[in-house]
């Protein structure tokens, strides 16, 4: 489908009117994407039938009602607690929980998304600033590099799922509840890529550029602000894109062990308590949309900043 669209359009392009050329470009651009989505949906439907089949058939047999194959088939498409919800079921559930309630109602996924988002953003801010500060220290002192780096790497080897409850309990004993402990777990995860990226970025200037600054007898602060910092900006955005999505994961994980009443993590937990697979999947969809949105915003800022810095 894609290849035929491409060949026909490139073949005929010089003779076409502008409007149809624009349409061809649209086709060329989006055809692969649409094909992919359709393929995934098709596979998903087949998987839903296969995975829910026994479930539905067993239900019929328990109730000893006569059933046909098409009854079971239909059943796999709208089971109340399916192993794998069919795409249309999930779409309806997501739509319902996003638009079906006022945004701040406890049953609205918008509300839960906002709760998680606020922890994510605060954690991202704390983690990124902390990550940049660590990178600055490492770049400016070899002693700090040797003493800090092993700890920084170790910090990421401990599974956060094991660490999160300890953090929450400890911070709770200090009187910290709600947003801040979640943000700290977020920050704990997301400072790492920022530190690694910024160490690389701060040391990326050409030796000639550093020597030039020396011939002008620039101060260390001038070398930082006029050379190292701008040179690190592309590295900064590459790290921030990783950091923002890990921040979201951190915030969700932090909501799991605490019995939080609100947030995407709380919805996941509640869904698994009550076997509400559709609810779990809806929360996952919202989390994925949130992550894509956050990365898209970061990429947008990146594009603007790098363009102003002369990127081509």
């Amino acid at each position: 489908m894609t290849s035929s669209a491409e060949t026909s359009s490139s073949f005929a392009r010089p003779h076409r009117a502008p409007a149809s050329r624009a349409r061809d470009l649209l086709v060329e651009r989006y055809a692969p994407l649409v094909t992919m989505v359709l393929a995934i949906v098709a596979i998903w439907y087949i998987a839903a039938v296969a995975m829910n089949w026994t479930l539905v058939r067993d239900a019929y047999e328990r109730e000893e009602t006569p059933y046909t194959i098409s009854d079971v088939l239909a059943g796999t498409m709208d089971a109340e607690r399916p192993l794998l919800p069919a795409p249309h079921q999930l779409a309806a559930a997501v739509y319902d929980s996003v638009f079906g309630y006022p945004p701040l109602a406890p049953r609205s996924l918008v509300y839960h998304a906002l709760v998680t988002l606020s922890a994510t953003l605060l954690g991202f801010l704390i983690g990124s600033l902390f990550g940049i500060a660590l990178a600055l220290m490492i770049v400016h002192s070899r002693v700090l590099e040797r003493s800090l780096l092993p700890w920084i790497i170790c910090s990421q080897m401990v599974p956060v799922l094991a660490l999160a409850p300890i953090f929450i309990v400890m911070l709770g004993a200090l009187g910290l509840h709600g947003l801040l402990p979640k943000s700290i777990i977020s920050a704990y995860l997301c400072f790492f890529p920022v530190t690694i990226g910024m160490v690389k970025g701060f040391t990326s200037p050409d030796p000639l550029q550093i020597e030039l600054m020396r011939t002008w007898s620039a101060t260390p602060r001038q070398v930082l602000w006029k050379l190292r910092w701008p040179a690190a900006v592309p590295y900064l955005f590459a790290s921030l894109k990783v950091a923002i999505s890990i921040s979201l994961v951190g915030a969700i994980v932090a909501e799991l062990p605490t019995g939080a009443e609100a947030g995407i993590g709380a919805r996941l937990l509640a869904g698994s308590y009550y076997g509400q697979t559709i609810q779990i999947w809806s929360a996952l969809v919202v989390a994925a949309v949130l992550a894509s949105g956050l990365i898209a915003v970061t990429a947008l800022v990146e594009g603007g900043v790098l363009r102003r810095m002369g990127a081509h």
Partner: protein
Amino acid sequence: MVTDPVTERLVVDARDISLIFETADGKVEALSNVSLQVSPGEFVSFIGPSGCGKTTMLRVIADLQQPTSGTLSVNGMSAENARLARSYGYVFQAPALFPWRTIEKNLKLPLEVMGYSETEQRQRAEHYLALVNLKGFERKFPWQLSGGMQQRVSIARALSFDPALLLMDEPFGALDEIVRDHLNEQLLQLWKSTGKTVLFVTHSIPEAVFLSTRIVVMSPRPGRIIDVIDCDFPTGRSLEIRETPEFLKVAQRVRNGLRAGHSYDE
């Protein structure tokens, strides 16, 4: 020494400079007893095969490297004080422009570092861009300029804070012959109109003979000066001078010096 009127007027006064590198393969004598006096307004070229220490000598004068022994004064001060006093502009083989800055902002960079006022920065950027024939390129980014144009920007940048001494380390080495000829002519004009002292490292005999008032021929292992050749062609010289017998005679002497100092048995 500072009270001696002759010494005081010297831009560079190097006596018995030696520099020994400790490398994994043992000691390398990059410079061995190099002595050189440069008066204001001279154009001195260093020429020699790679490894002869010509770049090292320039870096020592710029205080980018410290000699192991010997005495050195630049503008009547120690090399370090001369650097701190911003006595020289340095041009590397690569333009080393800051890619996130426009051409104008690249020119302003040393001025920003040195704390010139906003107005002064603007005036100087404008003046020196015009001097290297790059008016109209203020808002461009470095990648939008050719290699030769970028090197002209880096020369303008080195001149922007008006140092009396210009240190140039093979500034045109990476450029093609035509661009190089053109820039040689421009540099000569610039030197004539500004009256600066220039120390110029090069591989090219015609370039050295065409530009210089004095040519320092160096030889490797250990890095040392083997000949110093005066070459005073008329100030209004053009590239055609390279065909004259006088020019070829000086070039021949440089070549002989290089050959004598070069060991071919490696």
